[in-house]
């Protein structure tokens, strides 16, 4: 049955998106505190609203799937996974509120979150870039530029970077690292060559 197949594909895709978005939010929330960055904190707040929408869409998909009584436990498990992603997103939003309320993050927090990270940047990958079509693992950005990708924004979607994620033209990479690495990453993404050190 093609329609059942499609339904399950939709449910799975929505769940993956919900889960990944909530985890990206955690990374961005911690980074917002670390860098005392209102910009990132606001991004987290926006994603929180986005997650609320995703969660509703996900629940509606599951509830309208016309499952049989014998399958209800399996569908309950799905609903609960969605709830957990939503709770993680809430926790991330609470972390980012520390920054939005203007509380100067305690030095302890900076020590906890990361010793070395210093800046967060957003670069767009152009079609000339050597990164296009590469897996994140093969792009070796931490080695090449000292920058660590926190999230990938593709159109309206936020992707959680995984070693197998393939970089595409037009992607925004949100990355953190040393200030010196920012320029190198920008060049790589725009297709210019990095000067050898």
């Amino acid at each position, binding site marked *: 049955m093609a329609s059942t197949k499609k339904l399950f594909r939709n449910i799975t895709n929505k769940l993956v998106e919900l889960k990944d978005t909530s985890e990206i939010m*955690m990374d961005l929330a911690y980074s917002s505190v670390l860098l005392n960055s209102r910009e990132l904190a606001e991004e987290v707040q926006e994603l929180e609203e986005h997650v609320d929408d995703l969660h509703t869409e996900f629940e509606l998909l599951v509830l309208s799937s016309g499952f049989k009584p014998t399958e209800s436990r*399996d569908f*309950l498990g799905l609903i609960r*996974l969605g709830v957990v992603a939503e709770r*993680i997103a809430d926790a991330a939003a609470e972390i980012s509120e520390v920054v939005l309320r203007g509380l100067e993050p*305690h030095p302890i*927090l900076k020590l906890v979150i990361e010793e070395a990270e210093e800046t967060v940047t957003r670069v767009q990958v152009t079609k000339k870039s050597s990164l296009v079509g590469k897996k994140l693992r093969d792009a070796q950005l931490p080695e090449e530029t000292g920058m660590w990708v926190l999230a990938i924004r593709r159109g309206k979607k936020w992707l959680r970077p995984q070693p197998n994620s393939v970089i595409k033209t037009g992607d925004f990479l949100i990355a953190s690292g040393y200030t010196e690495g920012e320029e190198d990453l920008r060049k790589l993404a725009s297709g210019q060559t990095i000067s050898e050190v």
Partner: protein
Amino acid sequence: MVRLEKIEYKPMPIRDLLVQMKDISELMIDLAYSAALFHSRELAEEVLELERRVDTLAYILEMNAMLAARDAEDAEALVGVYTVAAAANKISDAAADIAGNVLREIGVHPIVREAFRKVEEQLSRAEVNPNSILAGKTLRELELAAKIGVDIIAIRRKGEWIINPKGGETINAEDILIARGAPLGIEELKGLAGGTIQKLED
């Protein structure tokens, strides 16, 4: 009757407590999803074990934070620390709930599980047998990521957890390894840890 461990004040650096809470809660999310999607009771049990640990750390952190605040300025500075700790605790509670579902046999629909397997790398648990060739070697020497495509993301050693172990960490007999990787690599790791595979191919 509910029996909970009595938690006594221990002077501990707030920084260390928070690092542990953050690291453990992140590991718990990964473990919990993996437990649900790969239907592993074993991983679910590890999550519940970690959850008890986060609760204990949270109490100790709160006590230390209360004692650290001497005036209004301190209190303002520490409220952020407290908020982050509370968020880590919430995350660990959410992860524990997924684990609880797994143990109560509230499953995830098999078709969705199947689809997830294609996009998510599996987490798994392997116990190191005394006759395993892994015992006594450092992670750097073993190069498991390069050789079998498996990352060791945590080690449980006699009730202690080492999260994101560094290359210099030595694997001991009886360690529980928590690893991430493709199914074939995970199988190989289990064989190596269990002692049934005695050679690590290049």
